[in-house]
């Protein structure tokens, strides 16, 4: 297991370094922040001073070297716009996004798995076909459009739920969260639903495919021959087997939900990192964009690792075989 850890760690370091280089160059290519940041009426001297202050006068490789050196010490640069640490900016907004992502994932799991299992048990009945039809809609409808429709129906026409913002928050271990107040919860519901829609469809498909495959296995027939109730056969024997692919994919998806909640956060004016990213790209605020992408890479690496560990808990056969080869 130790060898496995070390190898994974080495791979991760290489990935982070490559990603840093690509991100840094990529952001450099999209535009010159000086044009946006400095008053157009500023004279040459002021302009030169600003460029020097931001460190943009140095050659690219030197800027990259400085960035890497600082990054190793946990400093991902200072926002051109806000004048504060880019990392702090992101971390301040991170809880909002994380809360949204977790809420969306919970919805996807709680709704998707039962629906998928039902669709897998009765693939030829109307209920199975309706569920699958719904999942196609969930896959195909664009997130921003669904978000706007949700706002129109629930916030504008019906007036049941608020359209934007986080609502009242309370501090949980120093971090503001919405889900502990009624107002916060009502603000959380629509964006989480919007974000969950695509993932729910994904979970439905995974759970259905898994159920159909597992139901044909001899061990299910044997379980039935033991006289187990259908509830026990499906709830334990089928469920534990289909959780393997579902957990793998959902784990990876959690990363993408956190990193790419951009559209939903923009539509619902949710003050998370997705909205910060869009604003920073608009302002060509390089350090924030770079820091955001670096954090995203880090997040994916951590999640992948956690999924592997979880996988070995769910599937006892993985435990032995992964330590070697």
């Amino acid at each position, binding site marked *: 297991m130790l060898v496995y850890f070390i190898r994974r760690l080495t791979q991760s370091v290489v990935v982070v370094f490559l990603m840093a280089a690509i991100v840094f160059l990529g952001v450099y290519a999209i535009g010159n922040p000086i044009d946006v940041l400095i008053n157009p009426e500023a004279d040459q001297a002021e302009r030169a001073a600003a460029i020097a202050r931001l460190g943009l006068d140095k050659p690219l490789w030197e800027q990259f070297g400085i960035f890497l050196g600082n990054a190793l010490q946990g400093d991902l640069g200072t926002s051109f716009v806000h004048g504060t640490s880019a990392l702090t900016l992101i971390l301040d907004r991170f809880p909002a996004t994380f809360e949204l992502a977790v809420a969306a994932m919970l919805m996807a799991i709680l709704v998707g798995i039962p629906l998928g299992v039902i669709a897998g048990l009765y693939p030829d009945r109307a209920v199975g076909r309706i569920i699958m039809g719904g999942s196609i809609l969930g896959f195909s409808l664009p997130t921003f459009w669904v978000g706007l429709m949700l706002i129109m129906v629930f916030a504008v026409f019906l007036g049941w739920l608020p359209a934007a913002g986080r609502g009242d928050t309370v501090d949980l271990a120093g971090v503001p969260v919405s889900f502990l107040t009624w107002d916060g919860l009502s603000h959380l519901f629509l964006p989480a639903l919007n974000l969950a829609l695509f993932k729910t469809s994904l979970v439905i498909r995974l759970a259905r495919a898994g159920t159909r495959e597992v139901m044909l296995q*001899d*061990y299910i027939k*044997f*379980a039935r021959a033991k*006289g187990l109730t259908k509830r026990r056969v499906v709830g334990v024997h089928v469920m534990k087997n289909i959780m393997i692919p579902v957990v793998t994919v959902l784990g990876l998806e959690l990363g993408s939900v956190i990193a790419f909640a951009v559209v939903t956060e923009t539509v619902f004016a949710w003050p998370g990192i997705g909205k910060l990213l869009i604003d920073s790209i608009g302002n060509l605020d390089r350090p924030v964009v770079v820091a955001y992408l670096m954090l995203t890479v880090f997040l994916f690496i951590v999640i992948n690792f956690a999924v592997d560990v979880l996988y070995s808990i769910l599937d*006892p056969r993985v435990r032995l075989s992964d330590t070697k080869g």
Partner: protein
Amino acid sequence: MPEHTPTLAVEDLRTVFRSKAGDVAAVDGVSFSVDRGEVLGLVGESGSGKSVTGFSIIGLVDPPGRVAGGRVLYKGRDLAGLSEARMRALRGREIAMIFQDPMMTLNPVLRIDTQMIEAIRAHERVSEKAARARCRDALGRVGIPAPDERLTAYPHQFSGGMRQRVAIAIALLNAPDLIIADEPTTALDVTVQAQILYEVQALCRDTGTALIWITHDLAVVAGLADRIAVMYAGKVVETGSTDQVLDHPMHPYTHGLIGSVPSENRRGQRLSQIPGMTPSPLALPSGCAFRTRCPRADAACRQPPDMVERVPGHAARCFHPHLTGEAVEVPA
């Protein structure tokens, strides 16, 4: 003396599978019975309908298949009329089943104790602790060393033979009155096969459990079964005591089966084989389904033959049976 009721009597069982070409009968009018403590060998080639017969008895034929006719009388009670809930209560408790491939019958992600204890608690309200003790005893009985430790293991930590022992232990947990064993030793080494046969035989003798042993291997049933039913294309073509069927087979098909088994006293000779292949149930020959492969077939065989008991206890479904007195000659 009161009228004798066998543990299981199957009468004219018919199981069909729906297909595009209409209903196809995998089991077509099968009848046999098994008594307390008796071992019945159900013998046939792949596709002869022997496994489907087993699943029909225990009520586990899945769509597109269904039991379309006949009666399955368990201790005189017709199982066809039972609700799914009553049938479930019977499964595993009174009628247990052992499957062919031990690598596939245990759920790979659940521990052995989980899979054993649930088999007890599906039928009885017993404490986890009492159930565990029974599981440990059952594992010990089928010859698994250190049963306490093995209970907390996962199936992949067992060899094939050990897994089949676990499956047998599970089948025995609730002391069923009938066990249906669907080729349980086919996937195992010959030595392991012999051990398991011996153990199952001893267990049935001791507990009075009736056993239906489904197999394509005549050598296995020769040493195990009290009686044999030979199936061909969904029908029983010959029944009798093991000695009757193996020593004086009446049906040309049984004859061919026995001739194709390698044997000590025919060393060096070519093995005979039955020409042709098992016909598809979609395109069975009219009359006797075996006539296209049968050396004795003639025009009479275009009519379906009936089961005729020519020797007490020994019946065959054939117009031209090999009768006692004729030696088992092996066609060259």
